[in-house]
């Protein structure tokens, strides 16, 4: 009795000796924009391919809308995929590409045409219906791939790093557009990416993958502000890890902690009530609107401190190099990542 769009139970996949996915349990809600985030080789794409039906799990099961579809081929699942390289059919024009799914399902020609044109219009490509995919730019191909999948009104849309091949500017625009389209059509999106910023921007919830397992599932804000492991803290944003003796000295108790760079105050910015620690500025990295200060604490670890360039000159900022400073942070901004032993176990 599940109203979940996608439910994965104990899903595993091995290729020969290599375990790509190792016991994944996951529930994706209906209408959700869900991202699977992780470094390459973490198993996120393999999970997506198992949902689509391109790969058969070694063990475990895939449920779509409460139905077990584990053994079903891709064409018998109510999901559609937007591929990383778009996989548009080069021997068909744009309209025929978009119509393909409807033609296969024997939708009558007038309705087919109407729906395909509507889908193309919704991605602003109505004018290019007669073009061949090879005559389109990367961004346009991306939109055709999206229209080709959405025209079938699938229950779940799977997107495999669809923005990976686009340049940064186009990518940002497409992120917003994708999110908007998802809100309009109300279809569940499952989005695979290795770009944490992309995942944070678009998702309702994110699953962070590592070595074939899910490390944490949370909303973007929770993931960033309350990561439950050093890996998540490091992969989503920059983490400043404090553990061992440094944790004892700086935080005042043993364990493993992280403080986000923008939460750390430097020099004059340190406020009353902040926990403080002395250190030396090792380097200053100029990034335009912000600067990164790498501060080596006397207690050992080096923290990255982010400060907006609101006042003062760049020369003044650069002059901090080599200077002794005090850094401080509100105690509630210290993220506890769990007991210290956890890391040692994982690294051994």
């Amino acid at each position: 009795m599940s109203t979940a769009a996608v439910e994965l139970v104990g899903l595993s996949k091995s290729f020969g000796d290599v375990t790509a996915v190792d016991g994944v349990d996951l529930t994706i809600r209906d209408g959700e924009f869900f991202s699977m985030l992780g470094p390459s080789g973490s198993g996120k794409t393999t999970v997506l391919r198992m949902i689509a039906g391109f790969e058969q799990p070694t063990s475990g099961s895939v449920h779509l809308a409460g139905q077990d579809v584990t053994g079903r081929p891709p064409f018998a699942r109510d999901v559609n995929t937007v591929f990383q390289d778009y996989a548009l059919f080069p021997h068909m024009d744009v309209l025929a590409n978009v119509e393909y799914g409807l033609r296969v399902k024997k939708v009558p020609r007038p309705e087919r045409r109407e729906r395909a044109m509507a889908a193309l219009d919704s991605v602003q490509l109505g004018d290019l219906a007669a073009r061949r995919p090879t005559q389109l730019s990367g961004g346009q191909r991306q939109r055709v791939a999206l229209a080709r999948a959405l025209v079938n009104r699938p229950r779940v849309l799977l997107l495999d790093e669809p923005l990976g091949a686009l340049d940064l500017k186009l990518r940002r625009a497409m992120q917003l557009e994708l999110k908007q389209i998802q809100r309009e059509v109300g279809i569940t999106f499952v989005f695979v990416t290795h770009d944490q910023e992309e995942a944070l921007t678009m998702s309702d919830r994110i699953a962070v993958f590592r070595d074939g397992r899910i490390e944490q599932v949370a909303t973007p804000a929770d993931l960033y502000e309350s990561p439950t492991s050093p890996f998540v803290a490091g992969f989503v944003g920059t983490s400043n890890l404090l553990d061992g003796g440094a944790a004892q000295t700086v935080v005042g108790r043993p364990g493993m902690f992280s403080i986000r760079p923008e939460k750390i105050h430097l020099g004059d910015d340190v406020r009353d009530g902040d926990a403080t620690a002395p250190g030396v500025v090792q380097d200053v990295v100029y990034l335009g609107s912000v600067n990164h200060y790498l501060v080596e604490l006397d207690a050992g670890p080096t923290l990255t401190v982010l400060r907006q360039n609101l006042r003062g000159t760049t020369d003044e900022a650069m002059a901090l190099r080599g200077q002794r400073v005090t850094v401080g942070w509100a105690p509630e901004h210290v993220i506890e990542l769990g007991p210290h032993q956890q890391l040692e176990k994982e690294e051994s």
Partner: protein
Amino acid sequence: MTFSPATRVLLRAFTGLVLLFVYAPLALVVLNSFNTSRTFEWPPPGFTTRWWSAAVESDGARNAIVVSLEVAVMATVIALVLGTMAALALQRFRFFGRDTVSLLIILPIALPGVVTGIALANAFLTMFGIQLGMLTLVVSHATFCIVTVFNNAIARLRRLGGNLEEASMDLGAGTFRTFWSITLPMMRSALLAGALLSFALSFDEIIVTTFTAGQGIQTLPIWIYQNLFRPNQAPVVNVVAAALIVLSVIPIWVSQKLAGTDESVAAAR
């Protein structure tokens, strides 16, 4: 690359010489088909179209051409079907002995024709008890024609990958629908190239043909070979040769055209 002017002139002259060496004899064949002299005197004492009319009326030549065309078409059709299927099987599935099967399919093109000819003739006559004839000839040609289709098909399949097929299945198309709508159209130009080559191989094959055609069947190469040294027939043979030169330009031109404007090749990057 940059060359000094002297080198460039030298290279051009050399290229011209090589091309001349290849094409002068062919030009001579065409010229001699109009030569009034039965013995191809040089320079030609005069020109005539007599041999061309004689060739058109020659039953032997006409029958031989028809037989050769029939054999080449049938062998190519068999090769197209079997070669494509073999390429799909070997490219899309992993199974025990895959590499061995691949080697065994390609081997016939490397085997000396004499060996293939003797082996096939022996097998037909003794093992299967089939009289040599059209059937044995077509089957024999198909053994090496498959290789050209197979090689072209598998190279294309490798370059395509499975992505487009996955996309098709994802959009609801079953295995056969995907093959007809996606795989086959994407392979079309490769298959055409393979078929042209296969046709050409079969059309001028003489060694295997000698062993497997039997008595009653005369393909064009065999007819030419048997008539070349008959003084009466030599001018007619020459005309047939000249006609073949002109005809063989067509498939080469077609395949060059195809290679230039092939969308599936462009898309496969």
